[in-house]
């Protein structure tokens, strides 16, 4: 681990000011991902600005949206009674991730910005365009069982590992930012970027920009929802694939549908084409099959991850059947 300085910020303004004033600074949430990466010499920040004491409130705002402070712990969000009642897939996604200890420490902001689990990214002995731009990608022709089938590029085939992000993607969440140039809001679906030929640029955040909160509109009242995650180990493992779905069926017809996939792309993947197939169609197995096929129509397998395509389709179909 490279030596670094540490300071704790008491409010958003001082956090942003501290980061702007210190070259090579990184924000520190719970540290469950960043500190690991620092210990592996993958991340080498010169300074840490601890934002884990920033606002962590969870509740319904005057705008009727659910607001979660970026510093809220994953455990607090998953245990919140309002979240559990009105946004159950957020709680489900969280408790299906990591371990109790990690969730107690991990924050909402850190969870969304956690880095990929690509094994070559973690190993400074390997070539990785994300870690070292231009060095090559050892995963494309290497061990890529956990890698992306959607939206990847020849430069990078890594996945985004967050479960929470998948639920938030299905819920049309927004991410609220503060930066040296002031505050702004981005759609969660626009937060992460696909790798293209700049896989080291993972989000639309400008340097020094801080996530202050995440807000979520209330889901359609009649929609049922579920978060399904597949993994060989029963807990404490990242998704092979995961599915977040909301389905509203009226008189046997799909009135509205939202579908997001995890473990398949460099970002939480919203399957908009599949939603179009579903909306207005009879809520039948045949429709769900077509939707699942549409969701993965653009998928491109690598040598070891081809199973993710049919696996995701199976999980989509069974989740929709369960919700219909």
């Amino acid at each position, binding site marked *: *681990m490279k030596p670094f300085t540490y300071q704790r910020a008491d409010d958003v303004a001082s956090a942003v000011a501290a980061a702007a004033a210190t070259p090579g600074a990184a924000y520190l949430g719970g540290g469950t991902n960043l500190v690991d990466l620092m210990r592996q*010499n993958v991340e080498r920040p010169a300074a840490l600005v601890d934002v884990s004491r920033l606002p962590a409130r969870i509740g319904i705002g005057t705008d009727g949206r659910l607001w979660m402070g970026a510093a809220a712990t994953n455990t607090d969000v998953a245990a919140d009674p309002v979240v559990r009642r009105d946004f159950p897939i957020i709680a489900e996604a969280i408790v299906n991730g990591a371990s109790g200890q990690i969730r107690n420490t991990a924050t909402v902001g850190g969870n969304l910005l956690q880095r990929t689990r690509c094994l070559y990214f973690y*190993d400074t*002995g390997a070539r990785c365009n994300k870690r070292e731009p231009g060095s090559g990608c050892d995963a494309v022709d*290497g061990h890529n069982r956990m890698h992306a089938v959607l939206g990847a590029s020849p430069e990078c085939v890594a996945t985004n590992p967050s479960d929470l992000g998948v639920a938030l993607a299905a819920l049309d969440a927004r991410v609220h930012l503060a930066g040296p140039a002031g505050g702004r809001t981005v759609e969660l679906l626009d937060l992460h970027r696909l790798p293209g030929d700049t896989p080291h640029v993972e989000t639309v955040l400008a340097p020094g920009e801080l996530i202050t909160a995440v807000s979520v509109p209330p889901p359609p009242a009649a929609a049922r929802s579920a978060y399904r995650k597949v993994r060989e180990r029963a*807990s404490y*493992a990242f998704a*092979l694939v995961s599915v977040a779905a909301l389905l509203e069926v009226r008189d046997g017809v799909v009135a509205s549908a939202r579908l997001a996939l995890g473990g398949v792309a460099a970002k939480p993947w919203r399957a908009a084409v599949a939603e179009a197939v579903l909306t207005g169609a009879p809520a039948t197995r045949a429709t769900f099959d077509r939707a699942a096929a549409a969701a993965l129509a653009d998928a491109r397998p690598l040598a070891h991850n081809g*199973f993710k395509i049919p696996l995701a389709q*199976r999980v989509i179909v069974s989740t929709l059947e369960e919700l219909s």
Partner: protein
Amino acid sequence: MNADPIVGRAVPRRDGPAKVSGAASFTAEVPVEGLAHAALVCSTVAAGEITGIDLTEARSAPGVVAVMTHHNAPAIRIAPLLITLRGASFTRAPVMQDARIRWNGQPVAIVVAETPEQADHAASLVRVGYAPAEGRLVFDDLKVGAPQPDHVQGEAPAVLRGDAEAALRTAAARVDQVYRTPWHTHCAIELHATTVAWHDERSLTMWDATQAVTHSQATLAEVFDLDPEDIRVVSQFVGGAFGNKMMWSHQILCAAAARLARRPVRLVLSRSDVFRVTGGRTRTEQRVALGARANGTLTALVHEATTTTGINDGFAEQCTFPARVLYGADSFGIDQRVVELHTPANSSMRAPGESVGSFALECALDELAEQLDVDPLDVRAGLEPAAHPTTGKPFSGRHLLEAYRLGAERFGWARRSSTPRSRRDGPWWIGHGVATATYPYTRMPGGRASVTLSADGCATVRTAAHEMGMGTATVQAQYAADHLGLPLDRVRFEYGDSRHPAAVPAGGSAQTVSIIASVVAAARALTAELLHLAAPDSPLAGAGAGADDVEMRDGGLHPRDGGPGESYAAILRRAGRAELAAEGAASPPTETAQHAMHSYGVQFCEVRVHDVTGEVRVSRWLGVFDTGRIINPRTAASQFRGAIVMGIGSALTEETIFDERTGRVLNASLAEYHVPVHADIPPIDVAWLGHPDPMAPMGGKGVGEVGMVGVAAAVANAVHNATGRRIRDLPITPDKVLGL
């Protein structure tokens, strides 16, 4: 002997309170004055030469005390191998003596600094240049025509009886399949840690997390050309070892670096170092072919296995051993091969050989049972041999049929469906599987122990043995208390220090009986000393007074013929002695010369396999074991359960992934190498028969490893029963289950 024996009681662990309260001090925490800390720099290529090492930046990093590479390392001789019984190493690779690279992850430099963080950081600043060479890395390319090893754990690599291939061709029923298991890593929770303090140029103390105290002492003496008497090795608590905490390069490097730095130095391996610097269990590729008559008896049993080693390193993992002992057959075709790869030397990992070998054999038997439409337990029972099937030796004690019967009843085996893919609970397919377990009994030569009596009537047993969490201190105190005829709270057991009499490594499930044999010898010597002291005024004086004429009971010596005895305390008091000590060497392990001695068991399980996702969850487990006398049901049950947990890991999740282009371990962390978590493990029921083995000291046969054997096969067989799919390639992941 105690009239009401302590052996057999569920005595709580002696180390429990210290461990639960944090008072137990592990190697990485031992306080040493003036301590500096080390970190390794490891190669990132698998083969070739170091062309240059730039230490400029590292040397000027804050806190750096010394940096050692092959340029300034002292002369270090090759460490003796574990198999020689003199050492504890799996590798013959020179330790930082030349520019050659033998595997990806080989230490090429060690940095010593004031704090662990400074050492770590400075290590990241060492720049190493390599001229990589083409490595031997692709198993599938190299396995063809792989050579036979000289031996497999001292036994012949091949056992050929009759013409098994011919018998196969004409068999009424035939299974002929290839099974594969991946490289595994031990993943003890405690990282490997070593602390070395030199007292002068020729003497040192090493605190080490090891399962081979005496052999580490011998190794250090040999590699640094020192007198073993001048080396002290201490290992009080070890947080899991599983066969891996033997002698690797890191202890030697730590000692060399401490000499160079002229400071005590501590080296704690990082988790990725553990994966890359030390070796795990070899991958295997195994063909099992069974030829059978319609009644299930075998006309042919073929088991051919190919495993890997490092370059001129490691050992041929004995995966064909179960096939040599478990079942009768008219002909045998057993053969082992090894492929040398540019990887760390493979090492022993819990139930080496038997665990992965039984996966192949026990799955094949299940396939045969299916073909014959016979209950898989009945097929096994029908193959029970009268004597060891490949050596002809009589069994010292073997009660497998009883274990099958007891297990079947306790598990409710008869209620399972013999038709695959026929039971369902919602989206979960339910299946049941069974497999047999066996593990050889061994007792390594060379153990010693001392027993010291004090005037207050207490005894202290000392031996340089190991407590890695399995309960050594507890069960040995129980045994010694009975043997000496003392209450349990009057017996101390001291271990983990090379100043105590030499011990064998804790391996091969052999430590418990080996220590017992040493204590028996020490107690006998002590009896003679006591009689000598007692004469002529003691009530014992009249009693023929040979060691055979008296017994140790009720806190003293008593004539066997019933005459008056005398307490140890009284004998010492009268002789004016504060203490009396005697040391003994375990008798040579001759019991295996005439008899086939093995532990046995049978594993039953229920699995649930998700129809949509292919996820496998184990929902019920029973293991029934025939391991001789059980000293402590509590610690033995933990050993069985822990081994079953490890077996479930090997069945469903564990795989060390090598990049075959670079020979590098990719998932070198506990986040990515998946050992089971609590949610993967159902309540585990264990039972044992408890028949003492007539040939083993105290009738015990070792419980540490047999519990892992058969586990992966039982899971695979249950998955087949649940889904109709045979997975012959571990681990059994959802994609394989669904055939995607």
